[in-house]
């Protein structure tokens, strides 16, 4: 493990408290994130899982003030290194972006500038945050490409993005993300656009980098298959709220929320010869402009009763570290 410069000694890297994001639109206010609270510890991987529109990407972008405000409106507190990321000045947040908190985006085909070489893009955060110039910056860029497994990096560094395959580009994005050895790396669907073999390689790469650098990792995905392999903890997001959160083993063993159950049952299980078709969750996610007053999952929940439509479920903690927003115990629902 490389020894990072004086960094926070506390294990808690990020604490998010009651994060809310809404967008003012012509037809009304779309409430995309509705009060989520969570934390990430040093060296830990937190997976945020949810389907499209569940608010997972928006909540991540809001942390680094990357949403245009207006139309976006961000409330809540996100404590990082004793400061609230959401209320930092433009200059303050800029010093953190890419340096202490870095982000990797979904599509490696579009997240690199097509007209600049890989090297120049990789050197951008190095020059900005580490103050390295010229050969020093270039040397570090080559090292980074080596680290993420790009063969003959001293030659490839002057190539353009189109000369790289999708998997290679995502490795470059990872190299850019870790270039300043951030405390927190947010990977927003980082492997979604890649084929399965490449996906596995990238996940493996990320895990080894994480243990080497000791950074915290927030892994945003809709792919529960990837989650099982990489995450320590899983947070299930639906309608901009946390439905369930637990350690990954606990969640797979004891899925309490009907939504989590639905998600896991809609996954194909390799090796298991199942004659019946995959189950899908009927219906669509709620419209963020018209969130149901009760449980957001109520309209689609097979176990919903009247109470679910009117009363928002509070979090219950059946086991330490496991919280679930449902009125019912699993025994009541699934027998």
């Amino acid at each position, binding site marked *: 493990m490389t020894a990072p410069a004086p960094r926070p000694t506390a294990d808690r890297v990020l604490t998010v408290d009651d994060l809310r994001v809404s967008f003012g639109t012509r037809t009304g206010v779309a409430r995309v994130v509705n009060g989520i609270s969570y934390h990430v510890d040093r060296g830990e991987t937190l997976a945020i899982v949810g389907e499209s529109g569940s608010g997972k990407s928006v909540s991540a972008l809001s942390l680094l003030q990357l949403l245009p405000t207006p139309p976006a409106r961000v409330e809540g507190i996100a404590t990082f290194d004793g400061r609230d990321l959401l209320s930092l000045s433009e200059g303050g947040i800029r010093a953190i972006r890419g340096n202490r908190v870095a*982000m990797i985006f979904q599509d490696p085909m579009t997240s690199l500038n097509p007209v600049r070489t890989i090297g120049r893009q990789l050197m951008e955060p190095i020059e900005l945050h580490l103050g390295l110039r010229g050969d020093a910056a270039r040397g570090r860029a080559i090292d980074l490409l080596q680290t993420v497994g790009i063969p003959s990096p001293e030659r490839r560094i002057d190539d353009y993005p189109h000369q790289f395959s999708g998997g290679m580009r995502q490795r470059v994005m990872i190299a*850019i993300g870790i270039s300043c050895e951030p405390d927190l790396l947010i990977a927003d669907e980082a492997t979604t656009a890649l084929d399965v073999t490449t996906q596995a390689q990238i996940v493996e790469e990320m895990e080894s980098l994480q243990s080497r650098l000791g950074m915290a990792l927030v892994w945003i995905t809709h792919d529960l298959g990837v989650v099982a392999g990489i995450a320590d903890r899983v947070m299930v997001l639906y309608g901009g709220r946390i439905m369930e959160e637990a350690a990954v083993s606990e969640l797979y063993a004891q899925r309490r929320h009907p939504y989590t159950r639905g998600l896991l049952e809609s996954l194909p299980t390799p090796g298991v010869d199942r004659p019946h078709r995959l189950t899908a969750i009927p219906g669509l996610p709620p419209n963020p402009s018209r969130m149901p007053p009760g449980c957001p999952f109520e309209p689609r929940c097979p176990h919903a009763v009247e109470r679910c439509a009117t009363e928002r479920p509070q979090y219950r903690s059946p086991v330490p570290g496991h919280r679930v927003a449902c009125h019912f115990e699993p025994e009541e629902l699934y027998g």
Partner: protein
Amino acid sequence: MTDRASQRTLDAGEPPVEHRSRLRTTFETVRRNRLAVIGGVVLTALAVVALFADAIAPYTINEVDVANRLAPPSTTYPFGTDELGRDVFSRVIIASRVSLRVGFIAVGLALVIGVPIGLIAGYFGRTIDSILMRAMDVLFSFPAILLAIAILAALGSGITNAMLAIGIVYTPIFARITRGSVLSVRESVFVTAARSLGATDARIIRTHILPNVLAPIIVQASLSLAFAILAEAALSFLGLGVQPPAPAWGRMLNEAQGFLASAPWMAIFPGVAILLTVMAFNFLGDGLRDALDPQQRSVIESRGITA
């Protein structure tokens, strides 16, 4: 490589980015366009003529041969002489300097003012966009040549003011084209990615936005050169641009007015010079557009601004 190049001209649906050695494919595509090659050759010849005008011209601009006034083209005077007995050939050649200089400086001025306005308006959007672009719309709402005349009327005539006037007239075209491209590039993931790395707005505009919007700007610049030269000719024809005795193609046309029947060569040769230059820039510009930016239809074309 060559297959790719020829494909590019046909495939208009291709996204404006990506590319394998872009300079090279561009060059290849332009080379395959015969008109663009002709335009390039004519312009190169013109540039050589302008550079060595003093050496090529057999006479100086003010050398008069009173005995041979209004003489038709001959071996002594290849393009004939004007009403004062000056050699039309020498004057056409030396005037090429004025035309090219006015064209390049005026378009350069329009680029230097218009492109940053477009970048800022497009990138920041909102109020600043509205203010800047409405200002550009005001300029745009006047017929180009009329606006240039009005500016010259205010500033006084002369070649420097003519360049300034033409530059101002063409500024909104560059501002608009730049802004339009910025609006689409701004939404790219790589721009958000750059912001997520802590890059400042100035840096993002300079290193991520500008290089990605250059193609339509280059095309527009080459087309605008043609119109700037035409505009200069028109202004000089009206007596607002280059002042006598300095020669300019437009000015020479003006002076030829009274002699169209008796000495048509006085008008024909500067006229042909304007025609050739403007056509050459247009051919080259169209070729560049096919290579760089097949989807872009020039603003000038759609508005039909011709001086």
